[in-house]
């Protein structure tokens, strides 16, 4: 089975791609990189702040994907979700490790520097959908989510920093993530419907 470097993959194809990755097939590594290298690198750059750290993170994420590939189960979730979770978890670990006891300045979504625009339609569509989903969050949800996602703060750290109950922080984080998922899923459904009708 061969894989295109663009367009969605079926669950079966994602499972197959991971099997080939675990087998050390170079074309599988390159396919995976061509699909997810950029968003993984972006997470590294935005969270860790340097090209070197972003490159190192990207390499390590693919190595981890290969090592953990046997655990990937397409019935439990999409490959992109699985990979981006690995990438974000690794970035948070590094952020917290480098930071030690100190805390970095808060980076809000809207404060992330804008790089040169890209012309790939699919990347733009992904980002457009994600930003629409983010726009559906309340200011409080967006604020708390940014602290956890970009700064790697625990719920307790956020609660202490904001002076609000721990339970409230957890509730808002959960609500924010569920809203993002629902919004993104709804937009994907609508995009698919538009594609069918066209």
């Amino acid at each position, binding site marked *: 089975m061969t894989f295109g470097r663009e367009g969605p993959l079926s669950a079966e194809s994602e499972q*197959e791609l991971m*099997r*080939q990755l*675990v*087998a*050390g097939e170079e074309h599988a590594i*390159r396919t995976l990189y061509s699909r997810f*290298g950029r*968003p993984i*690198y*972006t*997470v590294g750059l*935005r969270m860790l702040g340097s*090209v070197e750290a*972003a*490159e190192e993170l990207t*390499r390590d994420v*693919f*190595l981890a994907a290969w090592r*953990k590939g*046997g*655990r990937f189960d397409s019935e*439990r*979730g*999409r490959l*992109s*979700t*699985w990979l*981006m979770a690995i990438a*974000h978890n690794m*970035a*948070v*670990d590094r952020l917290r490790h480098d930071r030690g006891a100190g805390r970095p300045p808060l980076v809000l*979504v809207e404060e992330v520097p804008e*790089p*040169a625009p890209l012309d790939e339609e699919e990347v733009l569509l*992904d*980002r457009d*959908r*994600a*930003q629409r*989903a*983010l726009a559906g969050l309340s200011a409080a949800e967006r604020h708390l*989510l940014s602290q*956890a*996602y970009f700064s*790697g*703060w*625990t*719920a307790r750290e956020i609660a202490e920093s904001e002076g609000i109950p721990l339970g409230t922080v*957890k509730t808002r*984080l*959960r609500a924010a*993530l*569920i809203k*993002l*998922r629902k*919004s*993104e*899923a709804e937009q994907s459904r609508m995009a698919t419907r538009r594609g069918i009708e066209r």
Partner: protein
Amino acid sequence: MTCLEARDQLPEYALGVLPAERVRDLERHLEGCAGCRRETAELHQGVETMSFSLPQASPPPALADRVVRGLFEGARAKPSQPRASRRAVRVLAAATLAAALVAFGAIGWGVAERHRAQSINAIAIRRIENIDKLDTFIKSLGGQPFQAQLVPVAGIESSGTAVIVSASGANSVVIIDVLPLIPNHGPYSVQLIDRSGRVFSLGHLQSSTSGDLVFVQFTAQDLSRVLSVTILDAHSNVVMTGKVAPYSKG
């Protein structure tokens, strides 16, 4: 851990900020709870959306090659230095294991004998000796022999060898011998992947009295197109892997 306790921690878990000491307990709960796994998957999708909301950066064009190289180097990284002298001897351990089968009369196993595979393997494992008989054993199967040098991934110390013979009937066999893995996250299972991406999930490595981990399994499967041999730990992480090449004596 109850589902209520688990779900209280899931948002932090999905965001990668749950303190490490609580992650293990939570993951243990998730293994056995489909409902909480579903919730985790939904929260992870929310995290993914955050990732895609970022203005996408352009990685350096050469990064793709560095990723590929890094992966191959990672697979070969950190062979066991202090144990290198043992490795030279043990690399032939699979051959000795096969020879032990020969010595035990395993050639041309009939159906009845195969039913006793476990006990025969156990006995064979205790009788690792007589390297020179491996070729005889392979030839007796009348099939195509392959081998794979198994190398540990970064952070793992071990070395090992796999011998695969693809033969007609139920005479195909997979024989593996590896040094004890450090750190140990067993039990370890064996997986073969062939050129069409088909995965053969085989059984587990067993401890031999010599301390090595060994594996012997006869099968009726066509193993002629196997591409790689992978050893997975108890959490299904790849800990050793090797590409299959034609068999060469010694």
